């Protein structure tokens, strides 16, 4: 009766909705205020973007999906034919400027050379250009960290929101699981799993993501409990929203800032972790260039003749992690509701 007098839920929610600006203008405005408040954060964001572009994440993923046949039960396999593969930026650069970026050409006559105009950072023991290998390594670093973060955040958000929402035995049960994952020393588990089962790009992404997932749920659970006390959850209950709708439409948007923050902070950590595992020999197998592996295989072997081999990959790791961290810091200052009022 009372609900009917008030009108539909859309009307209630729409009472004080401000006039919405176009999405692009809003995005531009946000970026502008971010740049004004956090110039260093923006610079680091640009560096992160640069590594994404260098890593050529988009073509890699697009080509992967364009080529993998999809098996459907009962219908047989479908082979998606999405035309010619998307060109890599690296390939394009190599064609346009051969002196700048001769990555694909292995030159056996130019081994272990110092930097020159042809090879900006020198070459390794079998005549491959170090700069080009570093750029390829960016692909591995970016793909592993982003993929693993996506998986772990999905798992962490699901566990955190569910245990915060239902409480009681669901919470207790899920928390025993999280406890178990916290009791496993991460590096040891990764070494055991990746050492026994074969390691590869997708194995690395999945193992890092799944093992790291439950631990991420701690803070999300806390935030969920905090959100659950708000009156709008009660209002949603009164109107008769289902549990799923409350979780997805009301709680998730309110904990999303926290999820994004956790994600940016674990990105840097995961780049370090991937490098560590590759350094120990549990990352990608050798022809694949990865920064950690370049340090351990070539860097240590030829350190006396070409010290650059042990310097540049580490610098690349440091720069990427540094930018991820500072970008995350700036993002936290802007997004974190607890810090927002203090300025």
């Amino acid at each position, binding site marked *: 009766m009372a609900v009917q007098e008030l009108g539909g839920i859309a009307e209630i929610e729409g009472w004080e909705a401000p006039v919405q600006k176009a999405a692009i203008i809003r995005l531009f405005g946000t970026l502008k205020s971010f740049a004004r408040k956090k110039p260093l954060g923006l610079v680091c964001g640009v560096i992160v973007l640069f590594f994404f572009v260098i890593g050529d994440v988009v073509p890699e993923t697009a080509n992967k999906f364009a080529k993998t046949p999809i098996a459907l039960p009962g219908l047989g396999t479908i082979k998606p034919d999405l035309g010619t593969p998307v060109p890599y930026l690296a390939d394009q650069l190599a064609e346009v400027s051969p002196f700048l970026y001769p990555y694909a050409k292995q030159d056996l006559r130019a081994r272990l050379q110092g930097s020159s105009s042809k090879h900006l950072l020198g070459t390794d023991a079998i005549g491959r250009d170090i700069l080009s290998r570093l750029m390829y390594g960016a692909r591995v670093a970016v793909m592993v960290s982003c993929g693993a973060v996506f998986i772990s955040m999905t798992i962490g958000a699901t566990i955190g929101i569910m245990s915060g929402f239902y409480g009681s035995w669901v919470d207790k049960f899920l928390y025993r699981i999280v406890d178990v994952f916290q009791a496993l*020393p991460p590096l040891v588990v990764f070494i055991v799993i990746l*050492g*026994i089962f074969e390691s590869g790009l997708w194995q690395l992404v999945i193992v890092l993501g799944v093992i790291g997932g439950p631990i991420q749920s701690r803070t999300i659970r806390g935030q969920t409990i905090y959100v659950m006390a708000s009156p709008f959850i009660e209002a949603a209950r009164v109107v008769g929203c289902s549990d799923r709708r409350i979780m997805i439409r009301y709680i998730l948007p309110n904990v999303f800032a926290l999820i994004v923050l956790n994600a940016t902070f674990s990105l840097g950590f995961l780049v370090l972790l991937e490098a560590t595992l590759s350094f*120990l020999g549990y990352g990608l197998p050798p022809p694949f260039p990865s920064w*950690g592996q370049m340090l351990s295989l070539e860097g*240590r072997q030829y*350190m006396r003749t070409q010290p650059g081999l042990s310097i540049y990959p580490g610098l690349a790791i440091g720069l990427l992690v540094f930018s991820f961290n500072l970008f995350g810091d700036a993002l936290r200052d802007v997004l974190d509701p607890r810090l927002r009022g203090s300025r």
Partner: protein
Amino acid sequence: MQKYVAQRLLLTIPTIVMVTILIFLLLRVFLPASVIDLIIGEYGRNDPELRAALEKQLGLSGQLYNQYFDWIGVSWFWGGPTGLLQGNLGESLHSGRPVLGELKRRMPVSFELGLWGQFWAVVIPVPLGVFAALRQDKFADYGLRSVAIMLAAVPGFWIAVLVITFGSIWFNWAPPINFRTLTEDPIAHLKIMFLPALIIGLQPSGGLIRLVRTQMLEVLRQDYIRTAHAKGLSQTTVLYKHALRNALIPIVTVIGIGLPQIVAGTVIFEQIFIIPGMGRYLVDAVTNLDYPVIEGLTFIFAVLLMVSVLLVDISYAFLDPRIRFN
């Protein structure tokens, strides 16, 4: 207080049980290459009798739950073999030596390395952080903060590689290959331990410098510091007796969180600096697919991690009464 400790201890039991189940599933059920096949391959003949005998000897025959009970040592109570509960971690497939005996030699080495690392993680950041706080917004402060941010981004193993590279180029120095224990040759031992420990300590230092600095700044603004100054106490007394002590409380917390890291954090440095600790043992076992060793070591690592987390939590409950009643 007792209630809290008892509760935490009771909660560890199901976690340990779950961890053993996970390790068991991972290493016995999902294992891609069967261990038996590997050993049979070394014998050079595929003989069902030999296979059955080997399975029985390695505890791989019978039902899965029976294997699990054997490994845990529950079946010992009705006359089975000894297991984890009786302190039997199994024997290495390759050397035939019991895992526990090997651990007795290796565990002190890893622990010592980790503790030295933790020592540097306190000795480096605390004075630097205090110094930065006292010179707030001056050149030294900016410099130290930049160094701190960079330290947090640079991987420790890269520093180790650089040290070895330039040590060998400039000073013709390389990490010693022969390991000496503390009792055999104390000076050689400390020489071996010094660099890896320093690098292990450098890793968390970046974050800790920033933390000490902010804590110190916050404490220095408190009323009791002004009172201490007003009473006419000297600058050093105010700093070390009043300010630093109060600033250190949350820092102890953070160092406590880092403590469990020493359990597994030394793996990579043991590998680089050729130190025969638990980490090297694990890496060797994984390379050889020496599954009893992997099982035993993962279990020990997990238990150590749990115990250190438990100790840290209980010490908080001592320090901070709010946790006890939660």
